[in-house]
């Protein structure tokens, strides 16, 4: 059901994009605004929804895990979320 919802949302987005392409104001949309970063949250929502329940459960565990570190609520740790990444840093 989650996947279907996300696909409906994406289909809606695609339809919206197609509709926008037919509008005369199309030229007002700058190439910069067409960058997918401006749709980051929509893309993320669809991606996460599509991951399925198994990943959702993992996400809950990770949220609980980071709840043990209240001093740094702003500190991310993608690497620990996905253990495969451990040891891979950009230095």
């Amino acid at each position, binding site marked *: 059901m989650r996947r279907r919802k996300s696909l409906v949302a994406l289909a809606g987005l695609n339809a919206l994009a197609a509709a926008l392409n037919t509008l005369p104001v199309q030229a007002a949309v700058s190439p910069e605004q067409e960058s997918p*970063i401006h749709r*980051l949250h929509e893309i993320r929502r669809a991606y996460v929804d599509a991951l399925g329940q198994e990943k959702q459960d993992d996400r809950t565990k990770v949220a609980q895990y*980071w709840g043990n570190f209240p001093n740094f609520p702003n*500190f*991310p740790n993608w690497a620990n979320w996905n253990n495969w990444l*451990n040891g891979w840093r950009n230095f």
Partner: protein
Amino acid sequence: MAEFLNPASFRGVTQLLIMQPTAFCNIDCEYCYLPNRGDRTAMTVETARDAARFIFDAGLNAPGFTVVWHAGEPLVVRPRWYRLALAAMQEVAPQGLTLPHAIQTNGMLIDEEWCDFFLETGMRVGVSLDGPARLHDARRKTRSGQGTHGRVMRGIEQLQRRGVAFHIIAVVGRPTLAAADEFMDFFQSHGISNIGLNIEEIEGPIHTSTLQADGSQQGFRAFFARVIERASQAVPVIRLREREDLLACLESPGFGKFGYNSQNVPFGIVTVSVGGGLFTFSPELAGTRHDRFGDFSIGQLPGASVDRILASPTFQALWPEIEAGVKRCRESCPYFDVCLGGAPSNKLAENGSFDSTETMHCRLSHQAVADAVLADLEGRMPRLEQAPAAGAYGTAGP
């Protein structure tokens, strides 16, 4: 952010302890930012023990905390030294914690003895390799100017023959951007399936990059998009660190709430130089010099403590300026949630100040990567309806 200036606040924050067993490197890559590459001094076992003690006494270690041996060619120091150093560090680790170690090498010195050591210790191995010989040998040279590709490949073949898992970190410069297929053909044909991409950066004493040329951002985006495509088509699938990292970021329950990354929060990364100097923030700051920040050292082993570091003039100069730069990124950049404020060392080298925003490093390593990965995700979403198989997005499992 004043609450950070309390030693207890930093408990559990350090992800990486970067150890420089020697500054010496047996080769002389043209884009290397490390100073003192001719200095053969080796770290003492006691300094290794002191470094671990500093982390554990202050409780800095985060879950998943890893020790990385790097910042010079670490295989110049022989396995017998590492056996002593690893044992000394383990002795002072909290009970029940087995310290994970990783090493980043140029691969020139890998031999049977090293393979035995890697298998015995479980040390994770990263090899620096820029792709096929044409690209690699153009920049990664011996001190006499010869290419190093042949010897590195012999080392890699040895790792593969012995069953030592490893990943590759490849530096991407301007010539690589036009050679995505050649680059991926090379890795695929050699059975290499874990790759990280570092751009040719402007950092420390390196003031220019081939990627400064006009059109590099579009070129990098196109290169990375093609690399993603080739990686997902490969059998077995090739894992790209940048893509996996961005997917992990999207999957994180904390997405959108984080304000800092490991390079711009104090003690997120701790670097220990060969002589026991302590550094934090970007590891590349270690060993370089600056008019206002000196050599960026925040303390000296043995005897350093978090409270003394927080009160030190160097830390007090670094942190407010770095934090101000992060704040400006947060307020001005649409990529903030996937980058979290950039790399201080790149800001300083490119913009002359930590209190600044966009860099070439941001535009390529974060923005172009995000553009390519997000566009790829968007392109894949509708197809899921026909092929909803598990792992259709290629997300790496643990």
